[in-house]
Each structure stands twice: as structure tokens, then as C-alpha cells.
């Protein structure tokens, strides 16, 4: 995506969020000391994002008028993540992580992690051998033992019984 266009979209999003927040703030019956600081922050955000949006729009208009109609290369700046060899792995990992978090209250930390670790490993290029998959499960067990049993960090139990019943 052209960098100026991307910046324009980003700044529009910032303006929408800041505008909605300011509206919410002004709508609530609050005393002045509660309202004043977020109001200052939001106002600054709106000013900066507004100026950035204008600058981005100006760049889009100027570059579009200058550029050769047969090429749109002048508009496009190479995206920063363009050098990354596996961008799809990031999105797949994000989606899997969201499923993992959603499953946590139902499956519990131990079981969800035992499923998540090998699956994430496969996304990140782990050879699909039984040994590797078991290694992922073993790592999940080790992390669970360290944090939940040794350090007694209370994690969601889900389907799993409490560690106290085992030890």
C-alpha cells in the first residue's frame, strides 16, 4: 500500500478514536479535575493526527499529479515488513494465539498450552515428527510445572483438576 495512503488511513483511525473518546468524555457528568487531563491529551492527539492527515493527503494529491499515469511507483514506498521472509507465519501465529486465549477458560492453561505449543511450532516451521510434537507437549508440561506448581501462579484450571490433588 502506498505510504501516504497508509498514513492517511492511520491518521483517520486516530482521529476517529480520539473524537469518539472526546465525545464520551464530554458526555459524562464529570468534575473538571477528572476531565481536564484526558481532554488535553485527546486535543493534542487530534491536532497532531489532523496535521499528519493533511500532510498525507497533500502528498497523495501532489504525487498523483506528478506521477506518470502508466506507473504508480512514485506513490509506493517499500513497506518496512517487506524484507521479512515469513510474514504469513506472523498472521497464522496471531490467529492461533487468539484461539488459544479463547480456549484457556474452558480447557485450562495446561491442556490449552499442550495443544498450542506443538501447533505453533508447526506454524513456525517445525518438522512434523512425533518426537517434535511430543517435545512441544513436554515443554508445555515443564512450563506448567514451573509456574503453576512450583511458583503457585494461579492459572485457569478448565477441565484439568487442581494441582493440589495430584501432589
Amino acid at each position, binding site marked *: 500500500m502506498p505510504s501516504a495512503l497508509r498514513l492517511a488511513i492511520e491518521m483517520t483511525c486516530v482521529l476517529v478514536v480520539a473524537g469518539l473518546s472526546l465525545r464520551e468524555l464530554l458526555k459524562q457528568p464529570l468534575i473538571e479535575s477528572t476531565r481536564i487531563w484526558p481532554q488535553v491529551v485527546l486535543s493534542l492527539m487530534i491536532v497532531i493526527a489532523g496535521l499528519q492527515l493533511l500532510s498525507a493527503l497533500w502528498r497523495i494529491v501532489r504525487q498523483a499529479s506528478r506521477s506518470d499515469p502508466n506507473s504508480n511507483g512514485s506513490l509506493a514506498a517499500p513497506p518496512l515488513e517487506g524484507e*521479512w521472509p515469513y510474514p504469513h507465519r506472523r498472521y497464522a501465529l496471531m490467529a492461533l494465539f487468539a484461539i488459544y*486465549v479463547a480456549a484457556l477458560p474452558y480447557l485450562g492453561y495446561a491442556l490449552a498450552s499442550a495443544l498450542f505449543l506443538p501447533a505453533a511450532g508447526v506454524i513456525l516451521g517445525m518438522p512434523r515428527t512425533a518426537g517434535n510434537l511430543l517435545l512441544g507437549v513436554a515443554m508445555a508440561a515443564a512450563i506448567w510445572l514451573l509456574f503453576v506448581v512450583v511458583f503457585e501462579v494461579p492459572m485457569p484450571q478448565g477441565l484439568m483438576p487442581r494441582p493440589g490433588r495430584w501432589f
Partner: protein
Amino acid sequence: MEVTLDALFVVLQPLNVLLLVAGLLLGGIFGILPGVSVLTAVVLVLPLTYSLTGEGSIILLMGIYVAGIFSGAFTSILFNIPGDPQNTPTTIDGYPMTRKGEAAKAIGATVISSAIGGLFGALVLILVSRELARVSLIFGPAEYFSLTILGLTMVTVLGGGSYAKMLLSVLAGLLLATVGVAEVSGESRLKFGFAAVNAGFHFVPIVIGALAMSEVFEAAATGLDISRQYAGQPLRMREGIPSRRELADMIPTWLRCAPIATIIGVLPGHGATFAAFACYGIERTFHRRRAYFGTGEIAGVAAPEVAGNAAGMGTLVPLLALGIPGGGVAAVMLGAMQIHGLQPGPLMFTNQPRMVMVIFITALIANAMILAIGPWLARYIVRLLRIPAYLMLPAIATLCVVGAYAANNDIFDVWVMLASGLVGTYLRTQGYSVISLVLGVLLGPIAEGAFVQGMILFGSPLGFFNGWISSVLLVLSAIFVIAPLAAALLRRLRGASQTLAEPRS
């Protein structure tokens, strides 16, 4: 004296010694792993500190911080891949030394230089922060507000990248900190009808998501995996002891770089990374063997390493003296202290002198322990690099879940962490500053408290200019904000005038 002995007794308690050694090992491991920064290590360990005392937590975090800064140099030297950004200049001379068969020598120089830099920085921390804190005792809300603003603007300006994006990152952090109950009035705001954010966002899930989780997502996309390159080179660490001639080459470097780097560290901004690059540049210009830099010169390894640890200690000066973190790790340390009911700043020196002394003594001992633990880390812990990224990154992700959930035992915090991770990943890829966002979240309540108190006291924003200290700090902040804009405008005008002056062909 009594407080010092008391603090020394605390630090030397078996559990705390164990925590320091564990911290040094953890920091060493995370520093070595490329793509996973020392900041991630500090963030991930944060939930473990809940079950520790305040002193134990700080000892553990200091150990991680000190070892994490220097251990990334090992991969710079052995594989030409910096473990952490501040170890990047070490590759320039460190890797050629490995190719010449002098890897042990380069690692020896790294260990000694880091220890010297760290000890120098720790001494400055002890001497300067106490005096700075004494001066800042006269600070009122106006001074605190202006100081916070100066810290945030300096981080913004020195952070590099797009200036407007940096400012927006800070403002987004400040805005996130305002959600929920206002400390001054107890009223709730900006909830948008969600009861889950009634008390506001806990900073721990945001910090873990924005800093650690986003790093995992980024590492997944970069596919950086050093495990295939690991050849298990045998290191004879006895060869790492520098000769008299090599010491003579390194001593001027230490003398020049340690003070410069500490000063850079004290100023909020890049900290260790900026100091390492700056000091390498200085040595490349002034060292008597500058002509050999880039070919495997030992002073070229010593310069960034002495700078990294000296600056690392320097970043703790504003945190301890003023309660304002100068960088990412210092920001997380502020969070760790807040979890234990400690508020760094001038009052800490009078209210909790033992805690301050514990930090000072730990800084000295941890940096001295680099000499003992460094060669061992280089020889054995480097083998952990054989763990492939496909096992390491998911494991870190599950640790992030532990950290976020343990903050409040609430699954909502894990969702906040995931959202922060997604936002953080986007911010990283588009040139925004995640560190600025985190600093905004952490400093937001301090800034708001001082601002509202000042407004109640003075009745007008102009009241913040009543005292000379706050006036100077605010003017400096304004200069930091305006100077880059003015410079950019001047460049544009100069460019336009040159275009007009050029004869048309």
C-alpha cells in the same frame, strides 16, 4: 552506615544471592537469544516477582538487566548476529576476531569491558542519584509535571523515526492510562460502557503485550533462527585474558567511553544502543589504532561493550532520583517497584533508604559478577542457541499468558495483552515507538496527578511557569519539540531556494 550494612545483609541473604545468580543467568540467556531482547526477559519475569519481596524482585531484575546488556555480544562475536541491538557495533570487530581464531580474546575483552563500564555506571548512579534526589526534594507539582513532560519529549525526539508518530505513540500511552477511575477524584471515565475497564487497564498486560508478545510475532515473521548456524566452537577461555599490549589498547577506550556512555544513559532516549554506537564511532575517530578498526581490533570490541553497561546503569539515575524512567527496562523496573508499593523518586531516599542501598549494592555486585559469570556464559549457555525458534517462540508466548493472567487472575487481562501485542506489532512495523507507548502508560498517572494538582494550585496553565526550575524544564521541552520541526522546515526552505537558484537547462 547502618543502612548500608543492613542493605548489604539483605543482598547477601542466601535467597537473594540465588535470585541475583538466577537473574544473571536468565539475563545472559535472553541476551544471547537473537530476536528476544533483555527487555522481554525483564517483562516475562515481572509476574514471578509478585511472590517475592520488593528487594528480592529488584535484585532479580537487576541481575537480568546487567547480564542481558552484555551477553548479546557473544552471538555478535561468534555468529555475526547481535543478541540485542546494543551489541550491533560489536559485530564490526568481534566477528573478524573470531574468523582470525581470536574468539576467546574478543569474549574476554567483552567481559572485562562490560564489567568496567557497569561498575563505573554503578558508581555514578550512587553518587549522582542521591544528589539529584536531594535537589529534587524542593520539587512541587509544577516541577514534577514539567520533568515528566521533559522526559517524555526527550524519549520522543531521541527515539528516531517519524517525529509525529513518536508523539502519537506517547499520547496513545497517556490516553490508555486515563481509562477507568481517576486517582484524583475517584470518578470513572472513558469506559464506553465496559464494566471490565472500570478500574482501568492494569499496566502489566499492556507492557507484556506491547513489548514481549509483539517481539514474538515479529520474530515469527523474520524467521531468525540461529540454531542451524550453531557449530559449537570450542572456546579456550584461558586465551581470553588480554595481554599487556591489548590492555594498553583498551584502557584509553574505557577511560573515554565509560563517562560518555553514562551521560548518554542518564538522558532519556536510546540508552545503551545509542551509547554503544556513539562510543564505537568516537573510538573509530580517536583511537591510536583506528586504522585497524573493522579488521578485528580489540578496542573495537571494548568500546561498545564498556558503553553498553555504563549507559545501562546511567538509565537508572533518573528512575531512582526523580521517579522517571529513561528507557524501556527502567520503565518495567518502575512497574515492578509500583507492584510492591514502592515509588522511586526523592522520597524513596528518605522513606526507604534500605531499598535504595539494596539497588546500589546490587548494581555493584552484579556488574562485578560479570567477570565470574561471563566466561561461563560464553562457554556453556551459548549452547542454548541450539534450541530452534519454533520451540522457543511459542514457549515465550505461553509465558506471556502467565504474566498477563497473574496480574489480576482475570482472563480479560490476557485479551488486553493479546490486543497490545497486535497493536505493538503494527506499531513496530510502521515506524511508531512501542517504548514511547509503554512510557506513556507508566508515566501517565504521574503526569496527570502533577498536572491536576498544579491546576488546582495555580488555577491556570501559566502557573506552571511560576518557578524557575519548571520554567527551564518546560522551555527545554518546548525546544525539544520545536527544534526538529524548525530544522525540517529550514531544510525544506533551503531545498526550495536551491531549486529556484539552479539555472534552467
